[in-house]
């Protein structure tokens, strides 16, 4: 397994080439196909791109990501390739364009190697909800890799890609990063263009990266961040060089510990690891203080009201008329819509559409949806207040380590509670990163989450990089 830094060193020293590297990654993907982390592999195109990048390296015209082999969660469009979203309803869909993030990666000479398996439409916390079968945890195949970007996390952990792009609507990058033992960054809402990301909940969705190191996540963010006229919600805020923040210096950094994130339901091994990470920061010159985010207990309820409402609206487009699966049996238009959707969507997606439709329906809109929007403001205000006195917050990423496959599939509410520490960042629109820090008594990875102010990814990357080198 190689970090991008190692790859760059080897390319400079001439001990490898992009073509050889790409061949190695493709070999690992093939050998690990039982993990089910990939839905499509671009063998020929990747090798052709690698040869092109080798020529550019020889000419001295190569971009910043030359030699980085990237896989993409199958919810982000790559031109002329399938984008299934882990759903039967998009099984045959070929994207007519590239997502902005893909354009930007390729412009800097990254090599796109394939698309990763995921929970259907990014709805899930275990990557068991894919129409193409579940993804298995590398360390123990009877367990789940987290979700919904489970395929991305496993691809990076197993050496099938240097970096993977995922999406995070309520924790879908950070929680699988935690379960698999990789770094997962969810940038600030609006930092990265969503053009070409298939929509789940538009006011929550963020594209980010999973990698072996924080530095690799920072390098990718340098390239994918910034305003895009094709996404009007992408922010017109300057993009710094995020790698310059990685100075291994936390002296004077003010770290907040939200007490509500250490309550009931937190696994004791996870608690111990997170406390150890806090001690490490303290010993190295950071100041640590307890803070309160009083509305924490309402985050899961608020998130699932608002995110399902947005999803029910976004997923109305899958009607079998213009693209996607069309049921054969329908005699009229309305019947075609209903049959196509009912046959094409899986059960978790249908459950969320139902819930979202319910909370938006006449008579319930004020009680649920509008109430949820109000509580969302209270949750955001909690963070604003906390960030008056501290520079970042340290929390567990998930309440437990990777759980067994099948353990929570029949109990949606229990599954939703595995997002308890991650949804708040999406509700507040702030950035968050999960970094591996220690293991539990079974040897399974534990992730520490660092949350920061809006558009201050630099601080959370700095802290993650520090903890990574101390763990």
């Amino acid at each position, binding site marked *: 397994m190689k970090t991008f830094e190692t790859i760059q060193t080897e390319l400079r020293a001439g001990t490898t080439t992009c073509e050889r590297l790409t061949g190695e990654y493709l070999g690992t993907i093939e050998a690990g196909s039982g993990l089910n982390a990939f839905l499509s592999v671009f063998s020929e195109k990747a090798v052709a791109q690698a040869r092109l990048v080798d020529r550019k390296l020889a000419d001295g015209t190569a971009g910043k990501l030359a030699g980085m082999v990237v896989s993409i969660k199958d919810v982000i469009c790559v031109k002329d390739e399938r984008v299934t979203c882990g759903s039967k309803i998009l099984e045959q869909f070929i994207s007519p364009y590239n997502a902005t993030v893909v354009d930007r990666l390729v412009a800097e000479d990254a090599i796109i190697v394939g698309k990763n398996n995921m929970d259907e439409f990014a709805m899930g916390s275990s990557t068991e909800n894919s129409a193409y079968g579940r993804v298995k945890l590398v360390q123990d195949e009877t367990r789940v890799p987290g979700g919904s970007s489970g395929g991305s996390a496993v691809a990076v952990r197993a050496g099938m890609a240097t970096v993977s792009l995922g999406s995070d609507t309520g924790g879908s990058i950070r929680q699988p990063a935690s379960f698999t033992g990789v770094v997962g960054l969810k940038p600030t809402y609006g930092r990265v263009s969503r053009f070409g990301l298939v929509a789940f909940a538009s006011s929550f969705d963020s594209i980010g990266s999973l990698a072996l190191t924080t530095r690799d996540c920072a390098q990718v963010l340098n390239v994918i961040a910034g305003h895009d006229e094709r996404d009007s919600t992408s922010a017109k805020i300057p993009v710094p060089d995020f790698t310059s923040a990685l100075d291994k210096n936390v002296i004077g950094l003010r770290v907040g510990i939200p007490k509500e994130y250490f309550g009931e339901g937190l696994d004791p091994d996870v608690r111990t690891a997170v406390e150890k990470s806090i001690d490490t920061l303290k010993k190295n010159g950071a100041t640590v203080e307890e803070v309160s985010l009083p509305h924490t207990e309402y985050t899961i309820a608020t998130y699932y009201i608002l995110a399902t409402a947005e999803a029910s609206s976004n997923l109305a487009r899958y009607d079998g008329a213009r693209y996607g699966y069309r049921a054969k049996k329908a005699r009229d238009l309305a019947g075609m819509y209903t049959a196509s959707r009912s046959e094409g969507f899986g059960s978790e997606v249908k459950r969320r559409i139902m819930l979202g439709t319910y909370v938006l329906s006449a008579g319930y809109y004020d009680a649920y949806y509008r109430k949820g929007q109000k509580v969302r403001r209270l949750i*955001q205000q909690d963070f604003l207040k906390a960030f008056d006195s501290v520079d970042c917050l340290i929390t567990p990423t998930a309440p437990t380590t990777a759980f067994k496959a099948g353990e929570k599939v029949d109990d949606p509410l229990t599954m939703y509670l595995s997002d308890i520490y991650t949804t708040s960042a999406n509700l507040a629109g702030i950035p968050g990163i999960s970094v591996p820090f220690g293991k539990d008594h079974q040897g399974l990875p534990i992730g520490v989450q660092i949350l920061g102010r809006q558009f201050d990814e630099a601080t959370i990357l700095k802290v993650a990089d520090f903890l990574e080198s101390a763990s």
Partner: protein
Amino acid sequence: MSVTIQDVEHIAELARLEFTEEEKGKLTAQLNSILAYMEQLNKLDTSAIEPLSHVIELSNVFREDVMKPGLATEDALKNAPAKTEQFFKVPKVIGDR
């Protein structure tokens, strides 16, 4: 508030979904348990709070009103389950009633 099978049937119709009787029963129970969990928001007095619909509060974002090439008809039709030369083809809009 408690969801009944009839409510599930009504919501399914709005969402253009259909379920078997068994699925309806299961869904009714699951929605009730999830909605009961959501009821906890009622503990909060939010009468003086403005709803938050967007986390980075942008005002309208405009661009210059100039023509640009879009997706070509041919490309837009590539993924169509049924099509004619220039149009998406769908079953009859009005049923057999």
